């Protein structure tokens, strides 16, 4: 039996990036209906995608310019005038 997991997992990843064609969607859903492994894969990469975006929020949401960086920028702008 020939398994399509290699190709279907690629489509799972690409569906985050672009809209799949009608034919691709058809193959994708047909396979997903019968393959638990690929469903697990899809669930995992969705979760990573979400977690990565939230990590961005928590890591970078709060950072600010330091006073010395801010002063340096103001000084650079003063030199323009």
């Amino acid at each position: 039996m020939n398994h399509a997991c290699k190709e279907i997992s690629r489509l799972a990843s690409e569906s985050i990036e672009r809209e799949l064609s009608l034919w691709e969607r058809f193959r994708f859903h047909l396979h997903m209906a019968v393959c638990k492994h690929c469903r697990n894969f899809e669930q995992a990469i969705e979760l990573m995608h979400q977690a990565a975006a939230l990590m961005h929020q928590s890591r970078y949401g709060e950072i600010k310019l330091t006073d010395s960086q801010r002063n340096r920028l103001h000084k650079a702008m003063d030199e323009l005038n």
Partner: protein
Amino acid sequence: MHSDPHQWINEHGDYLYRYAMSRVHSEEIAADLLQETLLAAWKSHTTFAGQSTIRTWLTGILKHKIIDHIRKEIRERNLSDNVSSDPTTAYFNNDGSWSEAPHAWNENPESLCRNEQFNNVLEKCVSKLPEKQRLIFRLRDISGDDTETVCKSCGITATNLHVLLHRARLALRKCLEIHWFGVGENR
């Protein structure tokens, strides 16, 4: 009032710095890019049409500075694609089935995403990726840049981006399964 660069710094400085930091991961480079942005904005501020907000306009300039910076970095460090050799075959048998079947991750994504320890493991797994995959995954999935911007930054086609992102996701999923979900490598 859009012609006072000091006001730009006061009102948008932190936002722009954050935007740059999350993409270049270096305080020094982020501050330099911000300064270049302000200088470029000052030079062209008379042409600012006022159709967008000041913040959007400044962010657009910064975005270009970041793209230039990343492209230069890729060129200088000669980060290669290697799209021709296919490392994804390692995850599959010859008949196209999984060589190690992905397990179900029975955790609530919402709470997992807010778990600091999980984020640390995820970050560690990201840091183990090949350099170009790491760069692309960070820009796309962590910073949330759109496909077009990431392609421009890295000077690659959309097709290559998909290939590299898929490789990154295969590797990351496996890494998390081992180091977070505790599934042994030889099970």
